[in-house]
């Protein structure tokens, strides 16, 4: 299947390479008028630019003057080795200057001070070597894991139990037994009797906290 875009891509390279057109390409160009026009135009364009080389080439007499001028320039230019040294010097100049200064500079140092400096350097070196040889304990790996901890909510139950001292031992035993029962002793103790003033719930406010206090050996009216 003929594709003009692909063919034109190939045509550019074909014309640039300057190789002869193959039979398959010729038949392709003959089959498509647009590609043929493009090929001819490209050929014409590159032929014209090629002829520019022939046209733009200066006459022979020009070259003698050209080489004379070039020779003059080269003769006045710094010679290759000097230019190379110069460029190197410009690039690495500051570094080399510092190094040269270090090498050439002579500083008079007293012998004991020099020995002390050498010993200090050696000691520092040994210390550094030993320090690098010391195995370093691997640092513990810290992993953060969220843990759920159950929180016990305490509830304080306060219960007031009244015990009649004057009651008989039998009654006291019964009271102890009643304590084990589901009905609260407090409720039993608050049962209205004939000789008691009936309790009123006026002004009673239930509270969240109940404090259970067992008072032994007393009655509500005992002081």
């Amino acid at each position, binding site marked *: 299947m003929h594709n003009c875009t692909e063919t034109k891509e190939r045509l550019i390279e074909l014309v640039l390479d300057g190789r002869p057109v193959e039979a398959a390409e010729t038949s392709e160009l003959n089959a498509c008028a647009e590609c043929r026009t493009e090929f001819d135009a490209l050929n014409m364009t590159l032929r014209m630019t090629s002829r520019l*080389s022939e046209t733009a080439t200066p*006459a022979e007499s020009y070259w003698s003057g050209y080489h004379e001028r*070039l020779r003059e*320039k080269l003769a006045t230019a710094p010679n*290759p080795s000097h230019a190379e040294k110069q460029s190197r010097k410009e690039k690495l100049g500051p570094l080399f200057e510092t190094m040269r200064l270090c090498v050439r500079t002579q500083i008079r140092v007293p012998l004991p001070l020099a020995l002390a400096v050498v010993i200090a350097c050696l000691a520092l070196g040994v210390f550094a070597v030993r320090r690098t040889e010391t195995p370093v304990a691997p640092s513990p790996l810290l992993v953060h894991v969220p843990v759920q901890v159950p929180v016990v909510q305490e509830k304080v139950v306060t219960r007031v139990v009244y015990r009649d001292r004057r009651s008989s031992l039998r009654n006291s035993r019964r009271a102890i037994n009643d304590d084990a029962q589901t009905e609260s002793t407090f409720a039993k103790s608050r049962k209205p009797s004939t000789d008691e003033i009936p309790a009123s719930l006026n002004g009673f406010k239930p509270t969240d906290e109940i404090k259970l206090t067992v008072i032994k050996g007393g009655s509500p009216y005992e002081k």
Partner: protein
Amino acid sequence: MADSDTELIKRAQAQDLDAFCALAERYARRIHLLASHYCQNTQDAEDLSQEVWLKAYQAVQTFRFDSSFYTWLRRITINTFLNHRRSNFFRWRGQSTVVQLLPIDLDDSGELVGSSSASPENIYNKLLFENVVNALAELTASQRLAFLLRHYEGMSYDEIANAMNCSTGTAKKGVWRAIAKLRARLSPDSHEPEPLIDLASEY
């Protein structure tokens, strides 16, 4: 018997100016041709090509015979072109149609070279030259350089990309766009340049 390139290069490396000038005489035309196509001005072309030789002379000791002398020299030429493009060295004509034909058609004494200037062939050559130079002037510097290297030097896209320090795709795009522009400017049916320009714009 003429000395070989290798012999001349070794002598040039030993600071023999005559040997280097002999080398210059061998390759000066090719370098000058590239320069004249690149900057479209005879004086600039001479300045540029002589600067190439000056740089080559100062760097000849770094030549290690890894490649041919011309390959090495062409590398210096391309770098010189690129550096001058960056520094706006050229007396850039840009889109103008000023073409200096005199230094090409006249010799040093001012006499016309070859046939009479009124001959049809000479007039045709002048018109052709002017047309092509103007068409090349419409290209960007990088497109022109890529086109010159591909068309006149026969370099591959990889070599152009390596020399111009860009990707192969960029080099290819530069050449194709240059051809599209030249075709639009120079071909007889220049009223229909769109297909090739569209093709080049895809890259």
